[in-house]
């Protein structure tokens, strides 16, 4: 069959699709049979690419994201001479959706990338002081590059979980400092992770809050909110996305969903060792 165009994202069709989905939600079920607070099955595989210091593939239903960690010795930022550097970026591969195109990232890609980056950074999940090798001169620069490979909704969570899984299982060489020289040793160590920040996205469709939106839910959602929470219950980043509105009580309802689901995902990550 030849698909002439992907009509699901054509603006004129959204109200019709939303009406259908709302009628379904009003009976208490979602299109794919899930409950409102039910996350799709999450699969995590790690160490899938040998040349990366760490890597992971995360599937949430049919959504797939992979993350690769590369560590290099580089210079610290002048204002933080004793701290390693973390660089996170997310690329929406054209493989993932007919609406993704190669080339410079559009605003959606930039936003998603920054949501994932903030979740890891603001939670202070990496003890960057432990990544300092020669104060002011040499530190570990940790690159986390994430590829969204297949898009069936909720790329942000898949990317955030993939990044976290890759970081948790990454190995970087141990080093020996001889005067001004840094010698890389054969032995390796893990990246000093002190937190496990898990992003959880909730979509608001009409008055309904649904966790882990599928692509068709995302297409008609008024608003998406991603909250990244930590084990302790601290929320380390929030992003509302989309041109709809939230009621005040939604904020805590979304928090409670995000924290609850975050715990479930964190227990999957704990099994990675």
């Amino acid at each position, binding site marked *: 069959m030849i698909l002439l165009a992907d009509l699901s994202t054509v603006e004129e069709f959204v109200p019709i699709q939303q009406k259908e989905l709302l009628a379904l939600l009003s009976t208490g079920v979602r299109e794919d049979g899930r409950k409102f607070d039910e996350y799709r099955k999450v699969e995590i595989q790690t160490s899938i690419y040998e040349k990366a210091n760490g890597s992971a593939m995360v599937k949430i239903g049919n959504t797939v994201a992979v993350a690769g960690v590369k560590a290099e010795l580089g210079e610290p930022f002048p204002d933080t001479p004793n701290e390693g550097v973390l660089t996170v970026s997310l690329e929406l591969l054209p493989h993932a959706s007919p609406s993704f195109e190669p080339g410079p990232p559009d605003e959606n890609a930039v936003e998603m990338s920054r949501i994932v980056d903030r979740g890891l950074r603001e939670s202070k999940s990496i003890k960057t002081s432990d990544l300092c090798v020669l104060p002011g001169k040499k530190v570990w620069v940790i690159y986390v590059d994430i590829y969204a490979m297949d898009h069936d909704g909720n790329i942000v969570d898949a990317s955030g979980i993939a990044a976290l899984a890759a970081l948790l299982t990454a190995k970087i060489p141990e080093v020996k400092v001889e005067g001004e020289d840094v010698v890389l040793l054969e032995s390796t160590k893990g990246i000093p992770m002190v937190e496990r920040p898990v992003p959880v996205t909730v979509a608001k469709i009409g008055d309904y809050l649904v966790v882990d939106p599928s692509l068709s839910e995302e297409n008609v959602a008024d608003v998406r909110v991603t*909250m990244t929470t930590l084990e302790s219950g*601290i929320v380390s980043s929030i992003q509302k996305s989309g041109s709809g509105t939230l009621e005040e009580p939604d904020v805590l309802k979304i928090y409670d969903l995000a924290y609850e689901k975050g715990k479930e995902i964190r227990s999957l990550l704990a099994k990675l060792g």
Partner: protein
Amino acid sequence: MSESIVLITQDGVRLDGRRIDELRPVKMQVGVLKNCSGSAYIEQGKTKILVAVQGPREAHPKHIALPGRAILRTRYHMAPFSTDERKSPAPSRREVELSKVIREALEPALFLEEYPKTVIDVFIEVLQADAGTRSAGITAASIALAEAGIPMRDLVTAVAVGKVGGKVVLDLNEAEDEHGEADMPIAMMPSLNKITLLQLNGRLTRQELEEGVNLVKKGIKELYSLQKQALRARFSGAQVEV
């Protein structure tokens, strides 16, 4: 992360002398530019922002036009001289993201379906940045849109709350943003009590999140009345009230 700076004293007085629930001094003016459909200037503490609205006008390029509504375009941009270190004028990833969330904060208030096939441009130029620029930009943009005569459900009003020295405070300045523990900008349509922008950088507990949402409403209420004042000042004298 310098622990040496005391951002807030035991009795709740901040670096610049404010209490925890106090806004910085705010000035707003509507109709400051000649060649736009609407414009506004805002100063909030040392943050200074100029907003221009152009349109509704014909969409260019034509293919971006939508048959059922106007397109809202927003550009949040920081002047190279607005920060301590010169900022490259090329749009950064941060500016791209903020332009998007600001658009999504303003869009719910506008009756865009009144102007099919057109574009409404909102240009937010940060002339001096001292924290709270996206929220001050939104506050000013909404009164510039009102001056442009675009029908709106409500104004949009924004301000940040944050966590500084362990306390939840209103309207962070730059030092508080830099050395504090969290920054949470929020925009609302105040009369409709709806949230149109919500972001958080930093670390908050559930209770602090709740406290923040409550505290932000106080600031938004004050800014909302300043917005209305600025609009009244612009249009007073234009018409005799009956």
